[in-house]
């Protein structure tokens, strides 16, 4: 039986590949953008000085030859197309099957072959196919002066009868062929490097090169090597040679831009994946094409993650930045998640999903620091209150399980020492707010807002009590002063029985109820620090009770838990959680049919209850995961499970702990 080699329609393959770029790059100029990206990537990977790219440069120009225009992509400071000077198809077949390094020439001339390492950009050998697509004649010429043996080569790659074919010439023969091609107008190469000539290029490409507009694409994707290595990338435009510059948005020390950078941080607990650098910036008007977090690999922007897709917040659109990865193992492994066109990642695959979650976490911290408040929270203040209510109930449980801090093991907490009671003091213990968060809306009231002066001293004393309410923005809004003869054991009330919050008297703001106790007579009495009590002596001034009119209080950064809503059509997502600097962030899917009605219900108590109960189970799961990774536990029952590996005991343990927790809540 005879064996045949499959005949492929290479033209169709080129179209299919081009379609891939078109879909991924997703703008009308995809061909220009894709072409510059692949051409520069191939050239940068072939640079002689791998560390800094010294003497490397690349130029784009349109050359008018006798048979029409060609786009010339010329690089210098590169190795040229090294490798075996093959003379037959058999020899070529052997080289390609060996998959050896240093056979650049053979790989360049054949599709889907490449022997690049992970720290190089294109490993799939697809870039050159795009060169053919860029030519209306599906034809390119190339010449190269090689570093390895100083050989000059010239050849062409083209489509004929739907098959990709190529010619190759070496040394003097190559020079003769080149002269014929270049009408003796083009000079020979005088230093190592390669030139690609795209015959009869797409008119859009000609226009973008001559106008210099191609530089914008180059700058947006290559800014890192321009910034760090002063990489020379130039274009011969109608106005002369223009060089690509680093967009000012990526320069250091920008004015009017808030910057926060993180270096060499692990992106996932108990994993070795680290970033090299993450820079987040807040600016007012970021250009559309630079919006988002640029995910960099090998000096190239692969994708810009749009901040609005990562976190809902007012003003989040003004946050941009970039992330660079540590080469081993993160950059080395993430390349397996990268699309073949080098313009996106599959964010569901590991470690790309770790990286995305890390960026999300940092973005959330950044938004919090720079007061970019979650839009959804503004829209659904009742929902937010339910979340906060659940956090308050769950926080002690998280603390009890040791799920706090920086996830670096048990921490010794410093005990805070309460000041001993002063003999003359004020108490505001009866005060009641409509909700635990101390948010008070219009139409609601704060009750028992008075202070009670206490005399634990030896004698009665004449005092003055100053009671006032202060707005953070506008200063004092209410004040009262009362003179009292304070006897031992008296329980007088000074101040307001209730504060009715009306829009006429209060504006949305943070307020404080403050009170001071002053002596109104000269006495022989002494305070605990030895100060003589005389007229005017401040006896007590530690009353400072905050409340928030029509706004939410800022979250305490010390809470071990935060709860956030998310919207997702993923049926498997009910809850998810991430470690945070100070504890954990738990996300619930508010589009899940189980949760949606709770969010839509005007009574938010059921939502609070549900979040609390599920949060408790999540806490137990986090505890178990944490203890398993540490192979030990401070809880005897968890310890037993981890030691014996009795998985059947897990649910039983969870249920008993859950029962204890909910018993406490409901009793």
């Amino acid at each position, binding site marked *: 039986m005879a064996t045949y080699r499959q005949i492929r329609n290479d033209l169709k393959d080129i179209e299919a590949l081009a379609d891939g770029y078109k879909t991924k790059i997703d703008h009308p100029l995809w061909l220009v953008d894709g072409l510059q990206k692949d051409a520069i990537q191939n050239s940068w990977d072939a640079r002689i000085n791998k560390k800094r790219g010294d003497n490397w440069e690349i130029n784009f120009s349109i050359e008018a030859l006798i048979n029409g225009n060609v786009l010339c992509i010329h690089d210098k400071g590169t190795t040229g197309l090294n490798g075996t000077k093959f003379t037959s198809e058999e020899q070529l077949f052997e080289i390609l099957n060996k998959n050896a390094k240093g056979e650049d020439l053979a790989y360049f001339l054949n599709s889907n072959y490449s022997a690049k390492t992970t720290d190089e950009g294109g490993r799939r050998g697809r870039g050159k196919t795009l060169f053919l697509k860029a030519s209306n004649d599906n034809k390119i010429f190339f010449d190269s002066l090689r570093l390895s043996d100083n050989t000059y080569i010239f050849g062409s790659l083209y489509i004929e009868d739907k098959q990709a074919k190529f010619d190759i010439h070496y040394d003097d023969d190559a020079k003769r062929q080149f002269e014929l091609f270049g009408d003796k107008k083009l000079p020979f190469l005088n230093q190592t490097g390669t030139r690609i000539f795209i015959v009869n290029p797409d008119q859009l490409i000609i226009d973008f090169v001559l106008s210099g507009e191609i530089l914008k694409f180059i700058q947006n994707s290559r800014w890192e090597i321009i910034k760090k290595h002063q990489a020379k990338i130039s274009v011969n435009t109608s106005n002369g040679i223009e060089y690509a510059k680093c967009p000012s948005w990526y320069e250091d020390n920008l004015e*009017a831009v808030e910057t926060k950078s993180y270096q060499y941080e692990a992106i996932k607990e108990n994993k070795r994946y680290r970033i090299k650098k993450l820079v987040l910036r807040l600016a007012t008007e970021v250009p559309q094409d630079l919006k988002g977090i640029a995910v960099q690999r090998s000096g190239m922007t692969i994708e810009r993650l749009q901040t609005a897709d990562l976190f809902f917040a007012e*003003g989040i659109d003004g946050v941009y930045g970039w992330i660079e990865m540590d080469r081993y193992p993160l950059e080395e492994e993430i390349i397996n998640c990268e699309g073949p066109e080098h313009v996106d990642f599959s964010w569901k695959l590991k470690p790309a999903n770790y990286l995305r979650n890390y960026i999300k976490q940092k973005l959330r911290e950044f938004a919090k620091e720079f007061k970019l408040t979650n839009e959804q929270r503004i829209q659904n203040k009742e929902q937010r209150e339910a979340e906060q209510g659940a956090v308050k109930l769950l926080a002690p449980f998280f603390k009890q399980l040791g799920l706090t801090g920086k996830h670096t093991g048990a921490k010794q907490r410093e005990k805070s020492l309460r000041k001993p009671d002063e003999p003359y003091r004020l108490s505001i213990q009866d005060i009641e707010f409509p909700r635990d968060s101390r948010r008070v809306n219009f139409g609601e009231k704060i009750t028992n807002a008075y202070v009670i002066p206490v005399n634990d001293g030896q004698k009665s004393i004449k005092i003055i009590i100053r009671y006032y309410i202060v707005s953070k*923005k506008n200063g004092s809004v209410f004040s009262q002063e009362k003179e009292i003869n304070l006897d031992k054991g008296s329980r007088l009330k000074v101040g307001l029985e209730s504060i009715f919050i009306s829009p006429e008297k209060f504006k949305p703001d943070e307020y404080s109820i403050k009170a001071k106790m002053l002596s109104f007579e000269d006495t022989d009495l002494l305070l605990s620090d030895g100060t003589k009590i005389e007229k005017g002596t*401040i006896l007590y001034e530690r009353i400072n009770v905050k409340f928030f009119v029509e706004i939410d209080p800022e979250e305490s950064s010390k809470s071990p838990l935060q709860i956030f809503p998310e919207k997702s059509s993923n049926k498997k997502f009910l809850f998810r959680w991430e470690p945070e600097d100070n504890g954990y962030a738990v996300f619930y899917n508010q589009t899940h049919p189980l949760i949606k009605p709770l969010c839509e219900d005007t009574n938010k108590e059921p939502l609070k209850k549900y979040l609390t109960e599920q949060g408790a189970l999540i806490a137990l799961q986090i505890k178990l995961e944490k203890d398993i990774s540490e192979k030990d536990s401070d809880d005897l029952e968890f310890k037993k499970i981890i030691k014996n590996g009795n998985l059947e005991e897990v649910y039983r343990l969870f249920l008993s702990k859950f029962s204890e927790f909910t018993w406490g809540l409901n009793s």
Partner: protein
Amino acid sequence: MVIKIQKKIGNRKKIQYKSYKFILTPEDIKKADKFDDSLMRSLKKLEQKIVSQKLISKNGKKKDPLLVWYLIGTQINKFLKKNKKYLSASDEDFFWEYLNGRSNILQKTNPEGKISKSRNDFKTASLLAKYLYSQLEKVGSWGLWREIITYRPITQDKRLLDWVINNLIDKPRTRDGARPLLKNVAKRFKRIETSILSDGELLKKLRDITNYV
């Protein structure tokens, strides 16, 4: 109101938008920039005045620091009077912080760390500009004035500050010479709310101090 603050860290300039507001919107940032532009214009005008009157030497040293700071204080008070509506009570601290490091002419060396309110030269200048320059001059140098203003209990009651001023006019002292008096006044009134004392009661307590100093 949001205040735009510039800090110099080494050779770098760092810009922050500070506010007690919960939500910082791009609109707020625009307003802060506008406020900043207006104040910068005001400071530039003052710089020109100081330079044209040759109140600053070639190396940037103030020839008569008290006079220069008095002019600065007067200009700031003028600006604040006009723009008070934009500045809430809570933003005021940011405003004083904001002024630090904004002009190399007005302030030759920029403080690098955080400066407490009582040590903010611009705030001190604003306070002094409420007095007659001739009166300030009689008390003593800018250095002495900075020392006086550092003591919080003294600045909290105008009667106390006036008493200190009169005392120092009567018995002129250097900065070091005035320190025991200032320390004693501050210590005496540290735990006293002077606002409930009558002028007589206050004076009686002050006399006790002068008996010792």
